[in-house]
């Protein structure tokens, strides 16, 4: 009469009870692994904090000058290279000394002012100055030379206007374009907003790959998997519990990192819905964990699994869009980005935290991640089941 539904219910109940028992076990084990706990705290808190101090901006770059003119103008030009971007490194006596400083990395830039610089300026003649930049770090080199161009250009036009007798009042009659740009989402363009978010999402990726893979490989290494396989647990249950337990840990870590480091130290605004952010993180963790479990199926021990995680992690980071936007990628790699789950996660992470974007904007990324997630996770489950056949 009512028997079949009740047995179905009780079987479902049993299924959940088994899942719960195993998840609790995973959490207890993790709680006793002090080394792993230390690694988790380090990555979510200190590593993210350190990333907030990494700057991709020009900061106290040393500029030396080889001043052959020694005039008021040459000095004024030199002193326009000021903090916080530049730091004046003094004068060198000849051009070769300047090059030597560049070679040794003791200066980033050499400003070479020719003799008769001021005289020619006053005469209204065009004058050249030479700027030599160390571009071995392309970002810094690029920034230094473009700032230098700006400073020298500004100096030139100031000199020109002065010579034309343009005063504050008559300036209005000169045809000038004023640059009135507005910077959105990160108005002060602080790296301490951009970098720690990027690092946090990377840490989530590492953890989501590593923790389930490690937990699964450890069962193999210690032989405990055998006991589980003879029990009524199905491979899917064994696998799910690892993903669930590790997702809980990752969400807790992410929460702590958001609250203590991003909000507490760097005052990142968190414009969007945190609920949405955690939902997306959960989806992402599941997806990546599928990959981690796949890794666990083909490795025999923790060392092998770690190697494979690094192998998978590197391309995931390159293809994430955090370092290079998709537009800047060659077309083949651009396509590859669409199968990197981190690409969608970063898109949504920045969207939610900095731009305050909601589902109406991010739905396509979410859909992409969900589809990719289902594919990767199913593949992981399939392989995990198959390894025991």
């Amino acid at each position, binding site marked *: 009469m009512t028997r079949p539904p009740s047995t179905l219910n009780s079987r479902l109940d049993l299924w959940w009870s088994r899942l719960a028992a195993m998840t609790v076990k995973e959490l*207890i084990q993790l709680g006793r692994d002090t080394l792993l706990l230390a690694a988790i705290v380090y990555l979510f808190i200190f590593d993210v904090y350190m990333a907030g101090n990494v700057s991709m901006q020009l900061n106290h770059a040393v500029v030396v000058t080889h001043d052959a003119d020694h005039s008021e103008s040459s000095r004024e030009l030199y002193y326009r290279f000021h903090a916080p971007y530049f730091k004046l490194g003094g004068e060198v006596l000849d051009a070769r000394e300047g090059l030597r400083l560049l070679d040794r990395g003791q200066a980033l830039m050499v400003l070479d002012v020719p003799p008769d610089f001021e005289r020619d300026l006053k005469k209204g003649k065009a004058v050249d100055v030479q700027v030599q930049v160390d571009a071995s770090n392309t970002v810094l080199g690029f920034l230094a030379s473009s700032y230098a161009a700006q400073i020298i250009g500004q100096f030139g036009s100031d000199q020109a206007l002065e010579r034309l007798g343009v005063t504050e009042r008559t300036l209005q009659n000169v045809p000038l374009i004023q640059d009135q740009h507005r910077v959105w989402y990160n108005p002060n363009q602080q790296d301490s907003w951009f970098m720690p978010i990027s690092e946090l999402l990377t840490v989530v990726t590492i953890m989501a790959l590593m923790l389930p893979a490690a937990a699964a490989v450890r069962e193999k290494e210690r032989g405990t998997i055998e*006991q589980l396989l003879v*029990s009524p647990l199905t491979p899917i249950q064994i696998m799910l519990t690892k993903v669930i337990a590790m997702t809980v840990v990752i969400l807790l870590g992410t929460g702590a990192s958001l609250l203590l480091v991003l909000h507490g130290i760097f005052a990142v605004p968190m414009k969007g819905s945190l609920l949405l952010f955690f939902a997306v993180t959960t989806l992402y963790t599941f997806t990546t964990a599928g990959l981690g479990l796949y890794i666990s199926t083909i490795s025999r021990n923790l060392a092998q699994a770690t190697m494979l995680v690094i192998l998978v992690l590197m391309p995931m980071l390159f293809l994430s869009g955090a370092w290079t936007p998709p537009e800047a990628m060659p077309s083949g790699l651009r396509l590859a980005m669409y199968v990197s789950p981190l690409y969608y996660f970063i898109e949504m992470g920045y969207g939610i935290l900095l731009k305050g974007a909601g589902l109406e904007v991010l739905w396509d990324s979410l859909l992409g991640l969900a589809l990719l997630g289902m594919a990767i996770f199913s593949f992981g489950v399939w392989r995990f089941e198959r390894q025991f056949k």
Partner: protein
Amino acid sequence: MGQPPLVDPAPPLVRVRDFVKRYRQQMAVDGASLEIAPGEIYGLIGPDGAGKSSLMKAIAGVLAYEGGAVQVFGQDIDSEAAAERVKVRLGFMPQGLGLNLYPELSVEENVNFFAELRDVGPELLAQRKQKLLAMTRLDKFRARPMKQLSGGMKQKLGLVCTLIHEPELIILDEPTTGVDPVSRRDFWLILTQLLRERGVTALVSTAYLDEAARFHHLSLMLAGKVLAQGAPEAILGQVPGALLELRAEPQVEALNRLLAEFPQTEAVGPKLRVFMPGASPQTAPGEVQARLDGLRVTDLRSVTPELEDAFIALLHQRRQAGGETAEPLPDWPANQAPQDEGVAIAARELCRDFGQFRAVDQVSFQVRQGEIFGLLGANGAGKTTVIKMLTGIMPPTGGEGSVAGADMRRAGQAIKERIGYVSQAFSLYQDLTVQENLRLFARIYGVRGDRLAEAIARVVVLAGLAAQAEQLVSRLPMGIRQRLALACALVHGPRVLFLDEPTSGVDPIGRRRFWDILIHLARVERVAVLITTHYMSEAEHCDHLALMHAGRVIADDSPAALKTALEQEAGQVLEIAAEPPLAALEALEQAGFSDPALFGRRIHLLARDPARDQARIRDLLAERGVRLLEITPLTPSLEDVFVHRILERERQEKAA
């Protein structure tokens, strides 16, 4: 010991005094001393963790130690340089099947490599290789890569590589563990032959107490200490006492009554075996009778105690002297199980292939409720594969089977819910406590709510884990861990229990405790128990045995019936004590007796017509001027049975 040396009197080859080895805080060997005379086979016997390997490595000069003195060939091994000087004259084979060999190299390449390592010239090499490979019957497999050899062959190849530079002293760490009985017998044969021909001295460790008779002198070790030392007979003499065998109905009632008085009581199949230290064989039967008042006692007889009995008695003495109270006797709940006597496990022509290789070949057997059924065989014989198929984690290539009323091909999930399983390696969570492990497995098996606490309490009592309930498993000794594994497998009250080599590496007292529980489960709760083992002595406890070799069941009967059949087919085992033993051995070989083998200072051989053969032996030895001490007829061991069946099977195959 008052015995003349086997070869010639000389100062000891190895002398160890108060040896101490620590691994950080962990004491591995705590004050061991021993002396090994030239030309003898010296044994170190003890379970895992006894300190055998540490001691052997120190003697081989590959392990630094904390205290005491080690002298080899009269040289103190106290520095790297000293160790290097003696290394040339000794050979060392570490523990593990073929771990010192290179799996990708062929048999011959492995031998050549070791010869080069030891600077053996090409002519000598060719000569020795020829001889050693022939002796080990590996010459047919010269070109085969080492990884494709069986466990026994790997071990023999390891021995060849250790012997290629003709060392004066060979140190072999557990060379026979997990090796099939025929290879094991070959192994001992080679060793005694080397001893006879070249006067080689050997230090050999083993976890099998039944190999003790092979040694001239031995040390029994446990937990870093030497418990007893001397010739096997002398150690037996240290613990005088009486060993009785009897049948009593009901067995469990008798077992419990006797255990209360004599802790060294155990059930062996249908029989009970009682060792009474200090008792005289004359009065002992009366004492036992008195305890069993009101029970039906039959076949009560006095037999010769074995080394294991002495070892366990010494252990008990040591523990009492150390102020350690003996573990409380099990206080088992006498719950009445359903008296079903049906077939619990049935295997019909099970086969399993791995690629080209047939791991299990047409295996059939039945296990009834309340029966302890043993699968006995070497590593790689197919035991574990059979269990994996029956427990539903590996589909068979062919054949069928049923377990606990469910068809193994279709109802794998139902089987998993109905059985208990203890796996080969310890496979519980060491970072959880005893209680947490029990809870986890109870919940996995669907024990919940009120029943959970009750079920856990039941198995805690059954396995005697009450004192350890809150401890982390990583801190528990091996014997208790295995009982926990058993408790986890029993927490849902299964009617069928699978045990895959559950007692490997457990000390003898721990093993007996474990078997006490199994006997209770089978006799009182009528649980069907399928157990695999490579301990021949342990197999004696089973009600029924299937001997497995190379994927097949080659014999299937009760241990007693297997032995009787052997005696009828091949004759009786005679043990001959004579002086000097080597001359006696040679005489017996020349006279054409079948396979005489040296066991320590004694010789075993098979006699088809015991009475006539005994007379022949007396005459023969008298004629050769060898002093005969005694001839004792022995009950064949299960190893004898096993070796006979394997060789018989091989002969049949050759004929076919």
